[in-house]
């Protein structure tokens, strides 16, 4: 389960990084914040594997990461226009597909 989780989160991060890099330098701060947040949540999940209700935690972390990405999209759009809205929408779809795969 732990290996599956790491693999899924890693795939998510790689996809997200590629899409964000395509969007240019102005979103690098949000990307760093989101990347750090995702890594932090993945570390937390890794530490509680086997705890009662672990599946609930995986779903909750998936939701929290998607919410964080949505908030980042709003912050960036408010500050810098709609350049990467389509990309974030695509990213959310990736989050939903990749993080749901085989775990939830």
């Amino acid at each position, binding site marked *: 389960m732990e290996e599956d989780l790491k693999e899924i989160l890693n795939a998510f991060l790689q996809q997200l990084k590629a899409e964000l890099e395509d969007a240019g330098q102005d979103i690098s701060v949000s990307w760093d914040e989101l990347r750090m947040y995702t890594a932090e949540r993945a570390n*937390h999940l890794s530490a509680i594997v086997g705890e009662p*209700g672990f599946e*609930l935690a995986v779903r909750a972390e998936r939701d*929290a990461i998607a919410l964080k990405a949505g908030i980042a999209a*709003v912050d*960036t759009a408010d500050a810098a226009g709609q350049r990467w809205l389509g990309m974030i929408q695509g990213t959310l779809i990736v989050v939903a597909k990749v993080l749901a795969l085989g775990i939830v």
Partner: protein
Amino acid sequence: MRRAILALSTLLLVVGCAGSAGNAARERALLPALRSAWPGVEADVQRGVNDGLDDGDLTGSASDALMASADRLEKSLSATIEEAKSVTGKEWPALHPWAARGVMDRVDDGEIGAGVAASLNERIVQFDAAIDALQGR
């Protein structure tokens, strides 16, 4: 004078575009994330309200009112962006403490451990922050 009018028009256009982009982000990125997270958050709210009822901290009518509030919030997440802003801003503050109580009740009953509770609470924190972002706060 003409330059001033042109500059003002340009500024208004830029501000208008920024506002529009923000609303588009709320509609296309934030609302789907809120909709996706809501079932989990709602389960925590329901659990907290039931616990409040069991412990005598809530009357039956207060419990019904809270769950009606949760229903309105859920419906608004599938409505227009303006309605979602308005309804979530009004309903979520009353529901928020009961979601946290629901998580605590799961721990008290031995259903989940402290680490899982931290994950459930993190979702509530992000849901709350997303409601703020929806309002433009």
